[in-house]
């Protein structure tokens, strides 16, 4: 159990690339936090610094208020699960899981190791395959073994770097739920790196969105979804991307900021399609393309040269080429300053 505090963390690689830039984050004890961002945003580098595999250029990392930046990885008691499992294929499943105990000093007695391997195998459903050679496992079981190997040393912190992205879709969904269950059971701090916002939203208590080495926003999934701090977060979170349209601020009387150029953001599910020219329709558009997804349709519209996506109900599916009117839910509109990209109060 540990709280993680990343304080002004910066990592600059030889060659000048700043992967992580003045990163500030507090991950509460026992919480499940996702680091979310596009590839190359610095999330994996952040993980490597927490684990100790990379040394920060500047800044400090605290576990439970204790600075650990100078500790070697093995002394930090973190569990790390890698995207490609990093299974030791020359060992059996049991040898893989017990690895952390077998290299620890002092090494626990064999009976103790066996007992703990057994406990973990039960939690993960690996009991029947402990003697099997790890290279013969399915990808799905390999990832379970990797998870088990990270659990054996009873780490205060679990770090998972895109652990499920190589799994097939059905097993990925199962493992997400399974991981969440395990996290509730062991109540350990978990940090989860992913570029998949659905994965982050569905699993994490809090999400830290990163882009270009900087923290963009840190909040609950609901906060990120409903009140994104800036245009990047608004565009990155949400499975059908938010629509952005140019807008101009018009105040009733002459005042500061009148005529300021803004961007209006509205999620596809907050736009209603009506007959063209119907009352309340603020914009008109033409249907370009329809993606039927079963439970909903994603309708691509052309609105005065701008692409707009709308979530439609399959029962009321328009046809390609139809002219439609658009009604925006006024409570759900967001405004972003074009100069700073930050959200502004409507």
């Amino acid at each position: 159990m540990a709280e993680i505090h990343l304080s002004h963390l910066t990592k600059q690689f030889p060659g000048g690339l700043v992967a992580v830039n003045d990163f500030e984050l507090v991950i509460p004890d026992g919480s499940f936090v996702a680091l979310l961002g596009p590839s190359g945003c610095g999330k994996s580098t952040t993980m490597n610094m927490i684990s100790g595999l990379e040394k920060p250029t500047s800044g400090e990392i605290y576990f439970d208020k204790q600075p650990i930046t100078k500790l070697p990885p093995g002394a930090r008691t973190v569990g790390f699960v890698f995207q490609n499992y990093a299974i030791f294929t020359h060992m059996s499943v049991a040898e893989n899981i017990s690895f952390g105990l077998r290299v620890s000093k002092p090494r626990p007695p064999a009976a103790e190791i066996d007992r703990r391997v057994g406990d973990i195998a039960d939690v993960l459903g690996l009991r029947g395959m402990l003697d099997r050679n790890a290279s013969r496992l399915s990808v799905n079981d390999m990832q379970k073994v990797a998870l088990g190997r990270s659990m054996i040393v009873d780490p205060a912190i679990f770090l998972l770097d895109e652990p499920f992205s190589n799994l097939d879709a059905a097993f990925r969904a199962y493992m997400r739920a399974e991981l969440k269950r395990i996290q509730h059971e062991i109540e350990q701090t978990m940090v989860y790196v992913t570029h998949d916002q659905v994965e982050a939203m569905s699993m994490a208590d809090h999400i830290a969105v990163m882009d270009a080495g900087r923290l963009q926003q840190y909040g609950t999934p609901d906060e990120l979804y409903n009140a994104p701090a800036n245009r990047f977060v608004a565009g990155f979170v949400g499975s059908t991307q938010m629509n952005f349209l140019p807008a101009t601020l018009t105040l009733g009387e002459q005042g500061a900021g009148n005529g300021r150029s803004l961007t209006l953001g509205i999620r596809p599910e907050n736009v209603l399609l009506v007959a063209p020219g119907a009352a309340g329709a603020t914009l008109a558009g033409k249907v370009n393309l329809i993606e039927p997804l079963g439970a909903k349709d994603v309708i691509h519209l052309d609105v005065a040269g701008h692409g707009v996506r709308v979530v439609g109900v399959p029962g009321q599916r328009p046809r390609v080429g139809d002219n439609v009117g658009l009604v925006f839910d006024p409570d759900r509109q967001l405004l972003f300053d074009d100069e700073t990209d930050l959200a502004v109060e409507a």
Partner: protein
Amino acid sequence: MSTVEPDLVASRASETELTAPRRSVLGLLRPVARWLTILLLALLYGFPLYWTVTMAFKPLDEWNPPGTIFWWPENWTLDNFKSILGQEVSGGGVFSQGKLDSAVPYIQNSLIAATGGSLLALVVGVLAAYGIARFRAGGGMLPFQILQLRMFPPIAIIIPLLFMFVYLQLWDTLWGLVILYGAVTFPFVVWLMRSFFQEVPREISDAAIVDGCTHWGAFFKVVLPQVKGGLAATALFVFILNWSDFLIALVMTQDNARTAPVFLSALQGGAAGQEYGKQAALAVILILPPAIFGLAIQKYLVRGLTFGAIKR
């Protein structure tokens, strides 16, 4: 495949018509030609081995009598082996009298020099290869700088080396040979092992380190076992190179450290000329160590030689 362009189909059809009458002849000739080629190649590679092994069991008068060829030993004998291993041969005639020049010490020298040199090259080379593959030690050019050690024929530097080794009092010593063999095969080890290490995901060693290993611990417990096939293949390759060296040992040794290949080439008597039977017997003995080594590590070898072929 039903959407093949029509003109493509047409051209294929006409081609078939043209070649149709010859196909039956070709169809017969092809396997015959293939088996002939295989037979020819097998003879080409197999015959020297056959000739050497049978020669080793031929008595003196069957070696190369004028006007006759003994394709098969008529009077099988172990005298060649006995003589080469330093045992008195009864009735050896003038040719073996007073010539109890046993090959055993030279075989010993060969074993020590080739094993020692290979071990030296492997220890230094494997560590260097890991440093290069995992930590980019020495920058991008280091592998090529190491390889350029092999970019000229050894004969080009053997004379300066000779002077150097005489000065260092390493000439005609086993230590000197071990150092030379290690240095000469070191670039091969680096290049072979580097590619094997590159196949091991970095996360493998990272995982071991997070679990509490040092870099050394991760290397020995996790990374090295993953490349043991490649290591076995590299070890065998390097050992064969060192074991079969002639040029370096010829120049760099005299009596103390002379190796078996050099001794073999010198096996000639004033009266008998080339002592073919003894040479063949020694050659058969010299085939054994690499062959035994190869068989012993065969299990790992197949994996090592096909390592890069498996897409993971």
